[in-house]
Each structure stands twice: as structure tokens, then as C-alpha cells.
């Protein structure tokens, strides 16, 4: 059955996690398994992407129960792209963490849990059933709790309490929304829900369900005013963990929001205005938060919030061009945000501090490495022709055609503040003269590592920087891909036909 290709990346991560569990004590073998497993999973997800790109939407009915009765797995272009990106990050972060995660942490099951997290992410992207999405969200959050708390340092635990509470609250709210929707329609399949929701007599209850979904996913994707857990927790774990969180976890929330508000619910004027307002305030609060930070990882956390606002802005405008911008921005953001946290961790390895006030002189001591670190930083700012520039064209074009001048103003404002923050970071960390920082006890600096270990840290960053460069210089391909995804999003009939086999 050709359609089972859909499940390969997901099942393979599960398999890798189980194999890694067998080597619980031997973290050296776990590292090898993790890197090899991620590379094979990347290969499988490329196969899936190729299949979807050439043959259109793939669906699979679990247990051969016809939709809408069983659980459906669907890979449209958006899902396949996100699965591919997840696995690219998986490879880079597996390579990075094979060196950077110390054995004391790895002994508590870092690598198996890492693959379970990737499995959860893959599952969330390909499921076509709203309750199944909830289950994958739970797989993601339970794995992320473990990754966040492994090591048990004081800041980690304190950050974890906030992260944990808000994410559980989001899940309960999501579950409530599912309950309301099931009560109204009696179905859970997303394609079937679209058909049934239109038939519900009491449309105001549908609007309420939509709002509950918005709050649940809003907490997950850290939009204003629900974002406070993110900057409190994302800088506390090791850089490799922050990278996967920063790259993917908030984007799962955005993905779920895109799915729900394009496929399930008809958009009302109230919802559009709410999304515009939330997008504006998210950009504003993320940007202002980033301006005053001193800890570089925390600065990147605020930038995540700011750029989530860009994606919500595209979703709010609700046109094909705007969706193109949102999807392109998401592709760019997943790669570059993960890389930023890796860069932050790498600077920590070099200098032994996250504080911008203490850091400095990196360009003088490591000119070649600095140039490598420059790529993700400038991609984020979006200096043409790097990757952050292109999606903004679509977003601003969409803003002009839908006459959302407020959104345009804030997108430009957000980009400007990002530029300012990165310029400040560059001058503080790379140009400023600095005192040598005394290392903490048993701190393993970059210079005391073996050649092989040094190489793996640099390779992971270079790999993601290369992907960023490709997104920038091959923008035509990504633009084609994004506009195809946007077309699929604005014509849900394709999705319905594929799932319900009405043709």
C-alpha cells in the first residue's frame, strides 16, 4: 500500500526511541543511534514530500475504517513540508546534542525522549482528526516537559512550573473546545467537521467553539496576552533543547490555528478583527520585550513572540497571498529560530556566558566562525536576498490589497526592531572589547573539546545556515511551494475530496 509512506517518518522515530531505550546506560551508543536515526527519518520524510509534491494529497484511514468513522491521517503539501522541516531540524539538533548534551543529562533518557518529541510533532502535522491532534499535542508536551526538566537546575525547574501549568491549561481548553464541537456536530474528522459545522443551526455556539480553540492554540503559540510562559522557560534548558522548542513547538500552535481557521470555521468579521488585534499586539510586545534583554537566549525568546505575530497577521488577512506569506514565513522561521538558539549555545561554549554585557570580542578572536554565525542572524533580520526578506513582500502586498494598513505598519515596525536588536547583539557580542570571563567549574569550553566534537557543533549550525541560505537564494522554489500550500488552504474542497473520497 503506497499510502503507508505517510506513516514512515512517524513510526521510524518511534522505532529509534525504542531502540535507544535498550541502551539506557550507554549514552555513547544512544548518540550514534540518534544521529543515524534522524538522518534516515529525514530521508523518509523527503520521500513523503516527493510523493505529495507529485501526486497530491495522501490520506490513510487507520484500520481501514472509512472516513469519517476512523482516524484519518492526511498529508497535504503543508503537512508534508512541515514534516520535512521537522526532520531537517531533527538531524541538525541530533548532531548538535550528540556533543553538547553531557552524559549526566543523557543518562536520564534525553535521546529517546527527543525522538518521541519528533514523533509527536510529525503526528500533529499529519493527523486529520481533531481529537487525534489533541493526543499528539499531549505526546509533544509530555516529552517537552521531560526535556525541559532533565538536569533539574533551579532555573529549569522554575521555568518548567510555568511552562507546565500554561500548557496543561491550553490542553484542557482545547479539549473543552473539542467537546463543544462534538456536541454540536457529532463528528471528529476535520473534513467531515467542515461539512457538518455549516449545517449547525445555532451558529453563535460555533463561534464560541472557534474562540475556545483560539485561546487554546493561542497559549500554545504564545500570542499576546498569553505568551508569558515562553520567555520564562525557553532560555533555561540546554541550547539544543531550546532550539527544538523555539523552532517547532510554538509553530505547532500556529499550524493548528491555520488548520482550524481555514478548514473548520468560516471566518467572521469579528474573528478577523480579533486576529488583527492579536497580531499587532503580539508583534509590539515581542519587539519591546526583545529590546531590553541582556541574556541572548532570552532575547531570542522574545523575538519568537514578535515573529509569531507576523504569521498571525497573514492568517488574519485571509487571502491567498497572505497565506503564502504566512507559510513562507513559517518555513523560514522554523529553520532560523532553531539555528539562533544553537548559535546562542555555541557562543556560550566559546565564552562561558549568555550575558551581552559580559560577552565581546568574538569577531576578533574567531573571525571565520563569526561569519558563519552572521548568516542566521542576518537571515532573521531579512536583509535581501536572505530568507527573512521574501515572505514580507507577500505579507505587505496582501496588506495593501486588503487595506490593512495597521498590520503593514506593525510588520515594518517589527522588522525594524528585529534589525535594531540584532545590530545591538552584533556590536555587543562580536565587536566590543571584553574582559575574559572565568569559566564555571566542570564547564567544557569549545577549546577544550576534541576536533570531532568541535566539528559536530559547527556542522549543525552550518547545516541549518545552509538551509536558510537556500530558502533565501532559492526563494522562487519556496515561493512556489508556499503559494501552492496557500491555494490548498483557500480551497478546502481539495482536502475534503481527498479525505472523504467523494469523487
Amino acid at each position, binding site marked *: 500500500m503506497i499510502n503507508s509512506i505517510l506513516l514512515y517518518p512517524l513510526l521510524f522515530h518511534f522505532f529509534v526511541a525504542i531502540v535507544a531505550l535498550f541502551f539506557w546506560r550507554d549514552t555513547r551508543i544512544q548518540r550514534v543511534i540518534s544521529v543515524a536515526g534522524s538522518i534516515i527519518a529525514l530521508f523518509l520524510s523527503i520521500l513523503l514530500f516527493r510523493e505529495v509534491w507529485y501526486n497530491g494529497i495522501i490520506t490513510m484511514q487507520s484500520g481501514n475504517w472509512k472516513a469519517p468513522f476512523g482516524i484519518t491521517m492526511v498529508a497535504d503539501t503543508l503537512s508534508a513540508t512541515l514534516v520535512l522541516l521537522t526532520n531537517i531540524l531533527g538531524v541538525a539538533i541530533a548532531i548538535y546534542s550528540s556533543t553538547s548534551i553531557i552524559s549526566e543529562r543523557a543518562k536520564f533518557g534525553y535521546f529517546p525522549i527527543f525522538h518521541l518529541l519528533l514523533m509527536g510533532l510529525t503526528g500533529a502535522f499529519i493527523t486529520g482528526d481533531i*481529537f487525534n491532534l*489533541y*493526543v499528539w499535542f*499531549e505526546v509533544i*508536551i*509530555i516529552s517537552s*516537559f*521531560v526535556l525541559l*526538566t532533565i538536569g*533539574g*537546575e*533551579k*532555573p529549569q*525547574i*522554575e*521555568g*518548567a*512550573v*510555568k511552562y*507546565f*501549568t500554561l500548557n*496543561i*491549561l491550553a490542553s*484542557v481548553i482545547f*479539549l*473543552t473546545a*473539542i*467537546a*463543544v464541537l*462534538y*456536541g454540536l456536530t*457529532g463528528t*471528529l474528522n476535520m473534513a467531515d467537521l467542515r461539512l457538518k459545522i455549516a449545517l449547525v443551526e445555532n451558529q453563535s455556539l460555533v463561534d464560541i467553539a472557534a474562540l475556545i480553540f483560539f485561546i487554546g492554540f493561542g497559549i500554545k503559540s504564545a500570542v499576546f496576552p498569553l505568551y508569558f510562559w515562553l*520567555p*520564562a*522557560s525557553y*532560555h*533555561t534548558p540546554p541550547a539544543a533543547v531550546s532550539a527544538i522548542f523555539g523552532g517547532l513547538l510554538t509553530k505547532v500552535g500556529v499550524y493548528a490555528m491555520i488548520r482550524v481557521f481555514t478548514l473548520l470555521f468560516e471566518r467572521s468579521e469579528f474573528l478577523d478583527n480579533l486576529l488583527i488585534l492579536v497580531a499587532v499586539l503580539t508583534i509590539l510586545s515581542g519587539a519591546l520585550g526583545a529590546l*531590553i*534583554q*541582556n*541574556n541572548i537566549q532570552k532575547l531570542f525568546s522574545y523575538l519568537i513572540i514578535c515573529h509569531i505575530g507576523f504569521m498571525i497577521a497573514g492568517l488574519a488577512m485571509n487571502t491567498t497571498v497572505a497565506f503564502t506569506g504566512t507559510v513562507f514565513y513559517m518555513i523560514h522561521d522554523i529553520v532560523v529560530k532553531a539555528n539562533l538558539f544553537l548559535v546562542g549555545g555555541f557562543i556560550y561554549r566559546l565564552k562561558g556566558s549568555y*550575558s551581552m554585557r559580559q560577552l565581546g570580542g568574538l569577531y576578533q578572536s574567531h573571525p571565520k566562525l563569526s561569519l558563519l554565525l552572521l548568516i542566521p542572524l542576518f537571515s532573521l533580520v531579512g536583509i535581501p536576498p536572505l530568507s527573512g526578506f521574501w515572505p514580507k513582500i507577500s505579507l505587505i502586498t496582501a496588506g495593501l490589497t486588503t487595506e490593512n494598513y495597521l498590520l503593514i505598519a506593525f510588520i515594518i515596525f517589527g522588522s525594524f526592531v528585529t534589525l535594531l536588536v540584532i545590530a545591538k547583539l552584533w556590536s555587543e557580542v562580536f565587536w566590543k572589547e571584553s574582559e575574559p570571563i572565568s569559566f564555571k567549574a566542570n564547564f567544557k569550553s569549545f577549546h577544550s573539546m576534541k576536533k570531532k566534537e568541535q566539528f559536530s557543533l559547527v556542522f549543525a549550525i552550518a547545516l541549518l545556515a545552509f538551509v536558510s541560505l537556500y530558502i533565501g537564494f532559492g526563494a522562487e522554489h519556496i515561493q512556489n511551494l508556499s503559494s501552492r500550500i496557500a491555494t490548498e488552504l483557500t480551497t478546502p474542497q481539495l482536502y475534503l475530496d481527498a479525505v472523504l473520497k467523494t469523487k
Partner: protein
Amino acid sequence: MEILLAFLIGILYASGIYMMLRRSLVKLIIGIILLGNGANLLIFLLGRITKDKPPIIPEHSKVFLDGFADPVPQALILTAIVISFGLQAFAIILIKRAYKVAKTDDLDQMNTTDEYA
């Protein structure tokens, strides 16, 4: 019965949120548990309560003869209960650990990660 359950769910949600807003770690967990139970009962209620009609096709028949209880909400609740059980187990260990490293159970004291540093 429906009215009674509706009130019960309302009380569970309200008291869950109230408990989460308190400052003590233990009350936070109790709040999460109450909220989870409220959500589970909500699925149960919104799946329509049908009494004495199990979803089993009677012998000598190929189809259901009259109305039957919807089994899907029960499957959903079962899944949700198991998941929230796992999360609560993790939460209890986490707050024990948090109490140990932060040496306080007052959530307002746990703000070192939010401070400017």
C-alpha cells in the same frame, strides 16, 4: 440529570481556575486535576446521555432497532483520563522537586527566570 451535570461541570471549572490562581504549588495541581475532570464530564454530557441503551446490536438483528448510547465520547474520555493521569503524576513529582530546589511553595517567589539578568 443534564442540569445537575451542567452545574457540576461549572463548579469544577470555576473551582479549578480559582485553585490555579492561588499561590501555593499544591493548590495549583489540585486546580489542574479539577479542571481536567470538568473537561472530561463536559465531553460526557455533550455526547448526549442515553440511559439503558448500550450500543450493542441485539441477537437475530443486523441493525440497531432504536436509539443507542454513543460510544465515542466514552472512548474520548477514557483517552483523556489516561493522559491526564500521566500528566498529573509528572506534575506531582515536578512540584516536589520545585519545592526542594526553590525551598518555597509560594509561586510568587519563583520568579528568578523572569528577572532581568
